[in-house]
């Protein structure tokens, strides 16, 4: 029990867990974090840094960039569309509201069916698209179709869960009219629940499309086509001027999808309803247009599928359950799982502290008096914002490859990459949080200097918001930790990559299960922590 003089309880448990996990990961993976990594790092990085100011602007490079950008858009669009369609079908099965007849006692087998579909969605969601790409790769080889299918599998899980939650939250009174016509459960769902939830469902799908654009631009690194494949290749060949050109296209694509998504989000509350049946036509023509860049790749993927050695697959399929669960296996699994976990928490911590330091160093809540201090403050704000924009516009996997040039792809480069990308994201969210504090609330706490005001006035106001952002970012970084692992940074992702490449199905299954358990556990723990905090601070 706390006494008035004792210190308030800190979230020390989380800190200890992170420290222990980090130590385990470093010790277990032979670190790869030592100073040896830094030997010659500058010499390796110099040509890349020099090339950043001189992109290859030849017609060949530009044509390649454009073609790959179009291919990336096609991968993202088809991946999202297929995932949304499959997610929609599964969501109908994962909704208790649809499964049970209102006013009647719920049937046990229907309840069990809903829970089973939810479990499938959790599994699809928890394994990152990069991991799915490795699996699809085995069947149809490398190419944009692999990327689209991998994204589709992941999106199925993500959107399926959101759709089912939206369908479950439909008020009963909104669907009663359909119930009363004597319709089947499925008809009630399609005529009642779906129209009632259609608005938010569309918004989430568009948001997911924007995320898919980012993912599609890097999934090529593991054989999913698009800009990522070329970027990986050119970096390997050391053609850094081409790398810069491709980075410019990548930045253009992410900036454009960001803008389009913002425009749609702004327009959606008062969105004029589309004319009669215009929506299916719009979606149909969009898909048809984006199908063109994928046409020949689909043929290749199909040929690859036909060439598949099914006898071998059948013979080895039994291996999936033939892994021994001895202590050594489990220890190795725990050690592998600790790497993405510690990477995620370390990177999130450093990024959060850097962003917070940025707020303290360049105050946002006041404008300094005097022309010169004001000019300095404005330029510092612009510079910080530009750095954050660049940091978040380049995906963490690309940061990993860029840092990998100097530090070699490994845990250190992974931590650096995720830290930089998270800094970009958190920095913007932190600045937005400061802007939401009404000036009048800070008036009684004015202490004189802007930085003291920040520490005693602004920081306590925005602390709960920041904590939520950091917690969500840590969750998202766990997924990033798994992905950079697949690309070669070590840990569970790396182990899964090796298992799939060498077709050790038993180990691969176990590692995929570990990914699912890890993601779900972190998700639940974070939610519990944030619930506990919100109860403590109503």
């Amino acid at each position, binding site marked *: 029990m706390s006494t008035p003089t004792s210190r308030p309880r800190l979230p020390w448990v989380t800190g200890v867990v992170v420290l222990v996990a980090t130590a385990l990961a470093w010790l277990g993976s032979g670190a790869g974090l030592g100073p040896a990594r830094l030997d010659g790092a500058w010499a390796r990085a110099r040509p890349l840094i020099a090339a950043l100011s001189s992109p290859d602007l030849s017609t060949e490079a530009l044509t390649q960039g454009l073609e790959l950008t179009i291919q990336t858009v096609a991968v993202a669009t088809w991946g999202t569309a297929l995932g949304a369609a499959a997610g929609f079908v599964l969501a109908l099965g994962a909704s208790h509201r649809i499964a049970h007849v209102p006013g009647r006692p719920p049937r046990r087998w229907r309840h069990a069916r809903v829970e089973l579909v939810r479990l499938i969605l959790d599994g699809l969601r928890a394994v990152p698209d990069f991991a799915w790409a490795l699996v699809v790769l085995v069947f149809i080889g490398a190419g944009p179709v692999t990327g689209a299918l991998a994204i589709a599998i992941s999106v199925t899980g993500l959107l399926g869960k959101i759709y089912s939650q939206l369908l479950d939250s439909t008020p009963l009174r*909104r669907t009663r009219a359909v119930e*009363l016509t*004597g*319709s089947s459960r499925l008809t009630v769902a*399609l*005529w009642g629940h779906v129209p009632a939830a259609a608005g938010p469902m569309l918004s989430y799908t568009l948001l997911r499309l924007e995320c898919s654009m980012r993912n599609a631009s890097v999934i090529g690194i593991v054989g999913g086509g698009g800009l990522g494949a070329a970027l990986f290749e050119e970096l390997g060949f050391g053609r850094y001027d081409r790398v810069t050109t491709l980075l410019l296209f990548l930045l253009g694509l992410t900036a454009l999808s960001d803008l389009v998504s913002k425009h749609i989000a702004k327009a959606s509350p008062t969105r004029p309803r589309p004319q009669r049946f215009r929506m299916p036509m719009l979606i149909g023509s969009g898909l048809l247009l984006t199908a063109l860049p994928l046409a020949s790749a689909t043929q290749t993927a199909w040929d690859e599928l036909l060439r598949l050695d099914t006898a071998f697959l059948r013979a080895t399929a039994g291996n999936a359950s033939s892994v021994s669960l001895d202590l050594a296996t489990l220890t190795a699994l725990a050690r592998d799982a600790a790497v993405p976990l510690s990477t995620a928490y370390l990177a999130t911590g450093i990024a959060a502290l850097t962003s917070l330091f940025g707020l303290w160093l360049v105050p946002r809540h006041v404008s300094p008096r005097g022309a010169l201090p004001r000019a300095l403050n404005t330029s510092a704000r612009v510079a910080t914002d530009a750095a954050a924009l660049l940091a978040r516009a380049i995906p963490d996997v690309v940061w990993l490859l860029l840092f990998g040039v100097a530090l070699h792809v490994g845990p250190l480069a992974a931590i650096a990459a995720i830290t930089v990308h998270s800094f970009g994201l958190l920095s913007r969210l932190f600045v937005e949080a400061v802007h939401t504090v009404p000036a009048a609330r800070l008036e009684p706490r004015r202490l004189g200097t802007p930085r003291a005001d920040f520490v005693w006035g602004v920081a306590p106001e925005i602390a709960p918001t920041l904590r939520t952002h950091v917690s969500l970012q840590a969750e998202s970084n766990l997924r990033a930790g798994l992905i950079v692992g697949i690309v070669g940074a070590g840990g569970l992702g790396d182990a899964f990559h090796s298992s799939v490449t060498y077709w050790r199905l038993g180990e691969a299954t176990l590692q995929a299960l570990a990914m699912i358990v890890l993601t779900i556990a972190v998700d639940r723990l974070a939610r519990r922590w944030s619930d506990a905090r919100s109860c403590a601070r109503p």
Partner: protein
Amino acid sequence: MSACSLDAVSVSFAEGRGLHDVRLEIPRGQVVALIGASGSGKTTLLRVLAGLQEPTRGEVEVLGDDPMASSGAARRRLRRDVGLMMQRDNLVEGLRVFHNVIMGRLGHWSTVRSLLARVWPRRAEIALAHDALQRVELGSRLWDWPTQLSGGEQQRVALARLVVQAPKLWLADEPAAGLDPRLRRELLTMLIALVREHDATLVVTLHDVELLDEHFDRIVGLRAGQVTFDSSPAEVDDARLAEIYAA
């Protein structure tokens, strides 16, 4: 033959309101008004007939079936033959007026046909919905959204849905509540005319006694969950009304 009957039906709620030992038989083709003050049990009685409320005691029969006992296909068949119009929330906001009207046919269609009608309706279906809307003087609003309609218009769309559904038993729970007096009268006249035209049975709950007229075959008065009188409109005088509305 009776359209519906209640034999010693009681419904108990924790808060006390409900039905107590209600006996009622309504022959096919009759137009019946249930009247009573708020909380007298009108809506509960209607919900029992619609199969939305299970009685605590007693027997209910609707079109020859027990609305609560039947399950699956049988319940859907019964719902197809019993149309219910509520005080509000009759329309699905995410669907156009057309879909809200043609929805009346869902009980008659297979799931595949329902899906097709939702995405790409046939000309005949569009014509059917349009005709029904013309009956309620809203022919020009086929492709509007429910949010673009006034309260009275929304109720008329719900009426058009019942026209399309063509049930044998029409149930309406204070369909004109919240409308101005002229519109209330208009809507009720429209409802009764359509029921007569379809040779169906109507049970309508009313709060407003001003609307009682010779168009009804029977008036049933309820007070505190019990039937206090069951007579023709001519026999309903001020004394009878005082019986159910007196404090």
